């Protein structure tokens, strides 16, 4: 048995903890550079703001309906997420963090009434952190996801599911008939792993609910769709197919990409931007103790700027030997950038991706075909770099082609006009109380 805990409207809820004046108002949180909605309060959902909708399409709601739009404050969300994960760990012996606002907890060997325990934990999340969450319990990940969806919908949209499932929904203690009834009330597109395209294909053959999907037999699914969808179906039937992973699996690729605050046409600011992205990516790489074999760099214009001439360029560069050295990775990324850069375009996005990742201890021996001096091992230098930057702040020590730390913000940097302060991660930004 496992539980899925998920914070309701996570980013908006986290903002409201420190800005109680936002309670009851329509609020959205926007992605980097205020591009599109990444979180919506219930009130904003009621106004029709969709997930991922570009900001310019609903900007007018600020004046028309009192909508409040905030820039994402990921420092705050990261800290609140850590607190949430730490409390969630109290529910059971194992924990798999699925994203910044959701976590699977294994309930193996947990005694007592699981619904009672879950309700107590939910109340604690609300009191200790000020964060509302919902909890779904079931035998498989797909069913736990579904139970969580039911717990949320039953609370937010009375009548969608029986009210007893609001906030905490435990499918494992229901009879097969009761589970079937809940599945029959669930549109097939709400099942975890069924994307819009598969949903369309399923509907075309008359499968519109989770119950109908669960009735299909495995062979048919595999033949007509995929092994992944077959697993989803078997999970709906109660057979675990997706493993519970307590230990995070190292990522297979690492990316650092960003949309620009305003268009960039010159090479010099691009060099600064790409240096920064490559530096961040190398830091992430070292944190998961991997080496990268190749570096991908890209720049592109924005398809949303219809009057601009469009350009998109990218290049993959092999590293001489797999490494996690900031200097080598930045060097490769900048070589790529110089090759793909074309003047005269309003570039709106750039990024660096590290691919062909392998654990750092694998390190390959090479034949001494070149008689140059063996490069010095810079692992300790990188370690020192990370320690200094961790202690004294990002960018304290950086590669020379990056933006000087105290220089005025460049065009490519994120616009953060609507961002709330780093309430919990910066001594000078803590919330203020009138005394």
């Amino acid at each position, binding site marked *: 048995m496992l539980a899925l805990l998920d914070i309701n409207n996570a980013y908006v809820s986290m903002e409201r903890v420190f*800005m109680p*004046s*936002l*309670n009851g108002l329509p609020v959205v949180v926007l992605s980097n550079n205020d591009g599109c909605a990444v979180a919506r309060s219930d009130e904003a959902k009621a106004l029709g703001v969709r997930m991922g909708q570009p900001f310019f399409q609903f900007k007018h709601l600020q004046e028309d309906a009192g909508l409040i739009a905030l820039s994402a404050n990921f420092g705050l969300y990261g800290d609140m997420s850590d607190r949430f994960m730490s409390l969630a760990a109290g529910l059971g012996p194992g924990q798999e963090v699925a994203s910044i606002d959701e976590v699977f907890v294994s309930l193996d060997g947990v005694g007592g009434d699981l619904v009672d325990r879950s309700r107590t934990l939910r109340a604690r999340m609300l009191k200790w952190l000020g964060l509302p969450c919902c909890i779904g319990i079931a035998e498989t990940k797909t069913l736990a996801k579904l139970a969580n969806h039911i717990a949320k919908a039953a609370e937010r949209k009375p009548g969608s599911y029986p009210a007893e499932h609001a906030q905490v929904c435990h499918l494992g203690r229901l009879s097969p008939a009761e589970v079937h009834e809940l599945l029959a009330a669930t549109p097939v597109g709400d099942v975890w792993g069924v994307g819009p395209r598969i949903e369309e294909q399923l509907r075309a053959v008359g499968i519109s609910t989770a119950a109908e999907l669960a009735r299909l037999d495995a062979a048919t699914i595999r033949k007509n769709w995929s092994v992944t969808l077959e697993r989803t179906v078997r999970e709906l039937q109660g057979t675990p197919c997706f493993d519970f992973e307590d230990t995070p699996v190292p990522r297979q690729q690492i990316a650092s990409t960003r949309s620009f605050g305003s268009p960039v046409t010159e090479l010099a600011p691009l060099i600064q931007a790409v240096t920064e992205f490559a530096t961040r990516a190398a830091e992430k790489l070292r944190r998961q103790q991997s080496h990268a074999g190749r570096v991908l760099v890209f720049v592109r214009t924005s398809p949303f700027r219809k009057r601009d001439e469009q350009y998109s360029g990218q290049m993959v560069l092999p590293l001489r030997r797999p490494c996690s050295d900031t200097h080598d990775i930045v060097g490769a990324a900048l070589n790529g950038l110089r090759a793909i850069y074309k003047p005269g375009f309003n570039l709106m996005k750039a990024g660096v991706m590290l691919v062909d990742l392998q654990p750092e201890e694998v390190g390959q021996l090479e034949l001494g075909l070149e008689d140059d001096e063996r490069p010095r091992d810079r692992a300790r230098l990188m370690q020192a770099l990370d320690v200094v930057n961790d202690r004294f702040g990002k960018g304290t020590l950086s590669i020379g082609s990056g933006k000087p730390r105290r220089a005025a913000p460049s065009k490519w940097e994120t616009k953060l006009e609507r961002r709330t302060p780093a309430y919990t991660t910066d001594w000078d930004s*803590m*919330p203020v109380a*009138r*005394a």
Partner: protein
Amino acid sequence: MPILYLYKNPGVMQSFCGPAGVSLAFVQAEPLHVQELGVFVHAGFPSPAEDIGAKRVDLTAQLVKHPQATFLIRARGDSMRDVGIFDNDVLIVDKAIQAKNGHVVIAVVDGEFVCKQLQLRAGRMKLKAANPTYPDIVPREGQVVEVWGVVTAAIKTMQV
């Protein structure tokens, strides 16, 4: 150098010498076992403090009982002067504690954080100032005043 305890056949005496010159000898009527203890032996006089196992006082551990539920909030104003909270002090606020009569709390009044002393009498709530020149806050009809957290300490830093 880890100490190894050697359990040996009866009648046979063997000693084990560590590099520091500590010699250990054991005779036991048991089959041979070698067990490694996670202890290191150093030559010279042992530190007399070793057995005490004292740890330096950890300020955070003392002041923060519920780390996940603890937040820092800066006080602005001097309405809480008489309980020792002054303008610009940093308050340690614990949201896990159930607020009781007499606690200094952070409350939300009209969407803003306010630091006052909580008074709960006969089911009625009042937020009292700790400075006679400031008024108390008594919730009006229909006004929602919510306790956000309990202040457990105030930190003031000196000019240095």
